[in-house]
């Protein structure tokens, strides 16, 4: 998956987790929690959805990489490079 495809995959996950959020104006550089109503349970769901959908494991010590879209995509890039886009 390319970075753009990974970003689209994360957007899709966020839409599943928080269907009421408008993600069209999401600022990739800003932290998710400053732009969306996401609590720790929702964050866990990003990790769980990545595992469920793409078999990508994110160990607990790496959770800090998932704070914003930009950091999430760059963290996931090596892990998801070999996954074919849908």
């Amino acid at each position, binding site marked *: 998956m390319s970075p753009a495809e990974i970003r689209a995959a994360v957007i899709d996950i966020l839409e599943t987790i928080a269907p009421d959020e408008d993600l069209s104006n999401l600022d990739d550089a800003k932290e998710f929690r400053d732009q969306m109503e996401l609590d720790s349970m929702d964050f866990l769901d990003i990790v769980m959805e990545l*595992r469920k959908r793409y078999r990508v494991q994110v160990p607990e010590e790496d959770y800090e990489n998932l704070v914003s879209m930009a950091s999430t995509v760059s963290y996931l890039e090596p892990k998801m490079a070999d996954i074919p886009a849908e």
Partner: protein
Amino acid sequence: MYDSIIIGAGMSGLAAGIRAAYYDQKVCVLERHYTIGGLNSFYRLRGRNYDVGLHAVTNFTPPGAKKGPFARLLRQLRMKWDDFGLSPQLMSSISFPGIELQFDNNIDLLRSEVSKEFPQQIDNFDKLIASLIDYDDLEQKHFEVSTRERLQEIITDPLLVEMILCPIMWYGNPREKDMDWGQFCIMFRSLFLEGFARPFDGVRLILKKLVRKFRELGGELKLRTGVSQIKIDNGRAVGVVLDSGEELSGNNILSSAGAVETFKLCDSDEQLHAHTTGQLSFVEAISTLDKYPRELGHNKTIVFFNDSETFHWERPTDDFCDVRTGVVCTPNNYCYDEKDGDLPEGVMRVTALADYERWRAVDQSDYQSQKQSWFDQVQASAARFVPDYRPHVIDTDMFTPHTIHRFTWHENGAVYGATRKWLDGKTDINNLFLCGTDQGFVGIIGSIVSGISMANQHLLARS
């Protein structure tokens, strides 16, 4: 071999099951009763539908709200606001002799009532709200601080303290006399800052939605399947023995059976926790009327009443029931959709404190006559605070602490469970966790959130 075995198909067990199944676990929910719901169940009698438990779904927030437990559980269960079919309350009250505080789902009404009846206290009342609005401290030590002491520091009129405590203790305090401050804060928000609502079809609607979701995700629900023992190997829970003798093994076990009830299944250190067994149980006198309550001039959803200036929240010691305080619930009095109209008949439900031990020990023939006698006393007590509906009663039913124990297996028929809570859901046994009432959240939304968060922490995060 299951990834997760969940004991109890109530709100918390089903919600936990949905979370585990959604993330592809092999999971089963085991329920001893022949139906779902646990403490929030339902039944049909002489052609009429009854709810057990549910007076009002607390924690109500309107569609689109992103904060609060209800919004959180919808996200976590991937459900829609409409799935719960909630209609908000009309208006409720806290009624003491000669004084009443009305409230609805907007805190402004309660504030204006407090400033009208207790003009000296309104600033203190605002201070109270400010002190608990962001309360998020689930640290056991801080959670267990005395509510009475905290309230007396903030509110200087003892009558107002009693009037605030009455509805909050009624809707979720497992302890006698005093209450854990953490529990108080959670309950205050769920009653007054969020609010009351009810699905037109009652609690069965929510339960059926949860079960359907659980099954669609591949979860197994086994009714009439009681657990007689939790198998432990080297300090680690490894499976369960069913009442039938059959054994199931699982990586994790999450129990909503209650804390003491769960420890009993482990034959281990139950004595260690026996003193935490809850003492508070209830009777409820349910009447079907030949008129709608509003036709009798009754427009309130819930009335919390108390017949003196002091509110006594304790197990009755010298009789079967204590009817000095009670709750009158009128399921007709919600803002239902026009397409639904009103319920088919008028219904009044009155709940009072009761002594489990007396109701358990009484013999079968006397049980019926005690029930009749206390039905009348409970209704008579309520008739002091709501229009007297007794001439209009066409059908009745009543549950006692004995009924609660018989269908939920909760010790003492204690609806709000043990007097201490296991906030992190952990037990002394590895891989055995608690959810539901004894984990710490009560009410329908609270129990669902309990199931979700315990599943997240213990069934999913470590798998």
